[in-house]
């Protein structure tokens, strides 16, 4: 995919992902998990990555965090973070990470403090006592109850929401310039979800950190992210300011995905078919087998990212065509 973003006038960027592909060798053949993904995150900006499960969200995060699984190949592309290609030299400490499941992400047999301090050991200046002070301050900031004693407790002594607060504190502990969050609220109940999201947004804004937020939930997205990239089967389908994409989605996939959202749908309709297996991606546009307006050419040509309006870009040449009513519910 020749890249419109790269040729656009270069604004100062915190992170720039250029034409990134990640393939994984499996028994069933080469899984092309990501293919030509590009986006830019300005300093202090926030970008949401949305898509169904299996679209490559997690692999994208793992590539950025430098923890790709064994057997993963990066045949092309770059992830430039503060001018440095982090696929070649991984950075730790400057990128904070908030994992998806607060119940599973802490080791049950170690005290919370020991675990959070371990990450700071190699990446934050100062002594262990300095680190402890800093964590306790952050515990105050994330509104963790009894912040003074939290370091000594074991993970099972916290509730899910409290654990997620711990993990947010840990992500901020090394004063990163970017925080990467992997659906950090899906494991929590709805009221806790809102609190945590509001807290996270506040903390990130206040510290002028960038945020990369992976989710499958458009509702969460609009609350947290300025921009959004919609991922489908390892490619960016649509990319633009969150408000625009939500108000006027252009890619057939985005339009159908939004129509699936219970808040918006008049009828519950799904998108027929499933995300293709990464080992058997269809040629041409990867959405064409499920697309209600696909044409013969879609099965042959990989669509270019075309700029539409207000900085939005969409990978579908027929984005102006109406979708049949039935597809939108």
């Amino acid at each position, binding site marked *: 995919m020749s890249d419109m973003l790269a040729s656009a006038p270069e604004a100062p960027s915190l992170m720039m992902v250029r034409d990134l592909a990640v393939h994984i060798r499996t028994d069933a053949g080469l899984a092309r998990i990501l293919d030509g993904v590009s986006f830019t995150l300005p300093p202090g900006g926030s970008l949401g990555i949305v898509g169904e499960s299996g679209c490559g969200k997690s692999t994208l995060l793992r590539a950025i965090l430098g*923890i790709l699984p064994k057997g993963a190949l990066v045949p092309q592309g770059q992830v430039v973070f503060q001018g440095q290609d982090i696929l070649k030299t991984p950075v730790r400490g400057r990128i904070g990470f908030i994992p998806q499941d607060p119940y599973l992400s*802490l080791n*049950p*047999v170690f005290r919370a403090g020991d675990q959070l301090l371990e990450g700071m050991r190699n990446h934050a200046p100062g002594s262990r006592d300095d680190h402890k002070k800093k964590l306790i301050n952050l515990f105050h900031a994330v509104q963790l109850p009894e912040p003074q004693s939290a370091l000594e407790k074991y993970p099972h002594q916290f509730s899910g929401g409290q654990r997620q607060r711990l993990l947010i504190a840990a992500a901020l502990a090394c004063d990163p310039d970017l925080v990467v969050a992997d659906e950090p609220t899906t494991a929590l109940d709805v009221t806790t979800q809102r609190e945590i999201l509001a807290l996270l947004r506040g903390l990130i804004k206040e510290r002028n950190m960038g945020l990369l937020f992976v989710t499958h939930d458009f509702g969460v997205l609009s609350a947290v992210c300025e921009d959004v990239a919609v991922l489908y089967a390892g490619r960016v389908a649509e990319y633009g300011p969150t408000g625009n994409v939500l108000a006027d989605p252009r890619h057939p996939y985005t339009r159908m995905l939004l129509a699936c959202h219970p808040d918006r749908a008049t009828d519950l309709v799904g998108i027929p078919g499933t995300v293709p297996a990464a080992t058997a991606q269809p040629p041409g546009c990867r959405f064409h087998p499920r697309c209600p307006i696909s044409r013969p050419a879609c099965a042959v040509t990989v669509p270019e990212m075309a700029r539409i309006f207000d900085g939005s870009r969409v990978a579908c040449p027929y984005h102006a065509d109406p979708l049949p009513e039935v597809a939108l519910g």
Partner: protein
Amino acid sequence: MARYILKRVLLALPALLGLVLLTFVLVRVIPADPAAMLAGDAATPAQIAEIRTRYGLDQPLWRQAMTHIRQVMTGDLGSSIFTGRPVAEEIGFRLPATLELTFAALFLSVVFGVPLGLLAALDHNGPVDQLVRLLSVGGLAIAGFWLAIMLQLVFSMELDLLPLRGRLDVALGTPPVVTGFYLLDSLLAGRLDMFGNALKHLVLPAVTLCLPGLASIARFTRSGVLETLQKEFVLYARAAGYSPFRLATIYVLRNAVTVTVTQVGLLFGALISGAVAVEAIFDWPGLGTYAVQAILAADYKALLAVTLVVGVVYAVVNVLVDVAQALVDPRVAEQLK
């Protein structure tokens, strides 16, 4: 925790009572006649009958069993019907010898088994993993008595590096008894020469005895580490920038060994029974050789006492294992409260 331990000990008591009863019945229904054995080949039926009466062997079996249990409850293990010496005294000397050997073997199993299992898991399906697999299959498959004799041939007879048999050179005497463990007692007495000598005597039997345990500990550790490596928190720790070495050696291993710790409790029983053969080959004056002598002489008092003592040791070890489990995993400790 203290309450939990007390509870565990109380729960062990009925099991031990059952053990006493069961072994008594088993030992007394086998066809060997202790009275005849004791009287010797040339004894007349009248002499045998007299011995039988003297030891209460002419009583009904259930009465004998009741007498036996009453004696055990009061701490009286009786006297050997063969040597006439109190069984408790004999066991008091021999139990530490067996425990010294089994603890040494257990120590070797853990010290080598856990790192081998860790290395194998970190090199999943790689050459190190294959090598460790070969070693652990070998460790389980090789017959202990064969290995013992081979070790004796090579290290004692051929190379003359290590002693062939016994716990200590006779010329050195024995250390004053404090714990009954020669390694400890010689150190307490400040006799380094004796310590070195006892250690040398311990090497071959301990190595022989440790192999099956080492193999199973390596295998359990390996699968524990592999399972732990799949966990979400390991991925998180990697993303948070833990150093890979500390991640593997501390973070992952502690979760992985929770399984291994349980295994150690089971292993201990196998070690004690394995010690019987090893002690016989290396002429180690422990419970194993004592038990063998007792069996051959139909010395049922000694045999019953040995079984009971081993049962008690096993129960104690299993309580200790539960305590260790709680120390490794705070969630277990929580449940115990």
